[in-house]
């Protein structure tokens, strides 16, 4: 726990330093508040619009959570299916490779066109940008079983299913973590892009609206809430990563 306390302490110091730097830039350059509001103004906007921000944040966070969950579950299932079935690999692997070359974010307008301005189009966009990194990072590790363990499995006479469950999956867990790291970076981006393309709710929508009305401080407030959401996800993945290193690899 001392390590956690120290990390929190360091984080707090760094946070305060960033705020101070921000304030210094605002004070020294005298930049107008509708271009760059100072931290005080943004805090004020956060406080004054708490209910509005909360409502929109809840909507975005709900989409993000659901989209991530769907993307991760489907990604893990696809990676396992590809590992277990040679035919699935033959058919799906090229599609998977090609899909990585397509910037999935560019599909957001199309998805909105098909599914409308509501939650479904947002969830699908988030799930899509999550699905591919999770699938490919996990699948790569699943297929990269060390020779010694592959030999062991073969000489023991293991079936593909047991080999995958007992050897490949524990070995591939760091791959899943890699996928999750990417997912929690892409997920919030997909939230923004999905909402910018067309939405009547959410933090991204709120930012556009505030921008249109010259409420720069409110825009920054929404941005900070979204960043906090991202950071929370990142902290969860880091904790999972630390746990897995401890549990799965060494001490």
């Amino acid at each position, binding site marked *: 726990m001392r390590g956690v306390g120290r990390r929190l302490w360091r984080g707090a110091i760094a946070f305060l330093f960033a705020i101070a730097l921000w304030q210094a830039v605002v004070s020294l350059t005298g930049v107008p508040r509708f271009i760059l509001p100072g931290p005080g103004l943004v805090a004020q906007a956060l406080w004054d619009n708490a209910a509005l921000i909360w409502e929109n944040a809840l909507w975005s966070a709900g989409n993000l959570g659901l989209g991530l969950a769907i993307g991760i579950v489907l990604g893990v299932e696809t990676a396992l299916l590809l590992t277990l079935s040679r035919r699935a690999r033959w058919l799906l692997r090229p599609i998977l490779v090609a899909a990585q070359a397509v910037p999935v974010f560019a599909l957001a307008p199309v998805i909105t066109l098909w599914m409308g301005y509501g939650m479904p189009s947002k969830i699908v966009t988030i799930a899509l940008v999550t699905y591919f990194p999770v699938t490919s990072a996990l699948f790569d590790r699943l297929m990269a079983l060390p020779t010694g363990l592959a030999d062991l499995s073969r000489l023991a006479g293991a079936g593909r299913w047991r080999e995958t469950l*007992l050897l490949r999956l524990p070995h591939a867990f760091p791959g899943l973590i890699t996928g999750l790291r990417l997912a929690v970076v892409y997920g919030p981006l997909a939230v923004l892009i999905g909402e910018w393309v067309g939405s009547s709710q959410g933090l991204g929508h709120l930012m556009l609206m505030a921008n249109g009305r010259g409420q720069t401080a409110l825009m920054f407030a929404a941005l900070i809430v979204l960043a906090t959401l991202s950071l929370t996800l990142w902290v969860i993945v880091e904790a999972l990563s630390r746990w897995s290193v401890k549990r799965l690899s060494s*001490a």
Partner: protein
Amino acid sequence: MTAPAIHMSGSLWVGGSGLIDAFDLTLPAERWSVLLGPSGVGKTSLLRLIAGLPCAARLDGRITATDGAPLATRVAMMAQDDQLMPWASALNNVIIGSRLRGERPQRDLAHRLLVDVGLGDHAARKPAQLSAGQRQRIALARTLYEDRAVVLLDEPFSALDVLTRHVMQDMAARLLYGRTVVLITHDPAEAIRLADRAWIVSRRGIAPCGLPDDAPPRAPEAAATLSAQAALLQRMRQFCAPKAA
């Protein structure tokens, strides 16, 4: 369990180029056969072919058990490293074969084997918490747990310091007694110490070599062992010399 002898003949190829020229040898039943040769000569390929494992080299010939039954299901293998599950305890590493086959693991047996290899107190430890020598002992316990008639050893002691290596050699000789063991190594001292029969592997083929009369494991400091070792090294230098030299 009666262990078979292994007969292998033919030549070894990688793509269109020859790796080992024509050979024909019988590795005796229930004895230690040692294949000695420099790195990269194709020793590991021979071992993988005996085990029926995927292998970059191609055998133009055959490897058979002298009792006519298939080999692959009667083989256990122990390599230099890279063979334990880092996430599992010593005990769970020993019983993994059972779990991979969907059988009920024999934990008592596994524990007895860990005691045999001197790791009775370390059953719950993970590989990273143990020394290289202790990890190899887990691998040995697992090999014994699999209880196969044929045991293939791919330089299992090469990465160990010299004292640990001696302890492990004695332990392996004692615990694997009565099985058909094939050991590959690049170390003449190890070959002399453990072999009932020994061969030198080179591009030009596989040639038998002489050994002291006493039974292995031979005392490393005995005069006969040392002179046999020197003679073997001399032979290796002639037999395995690069063509251009």
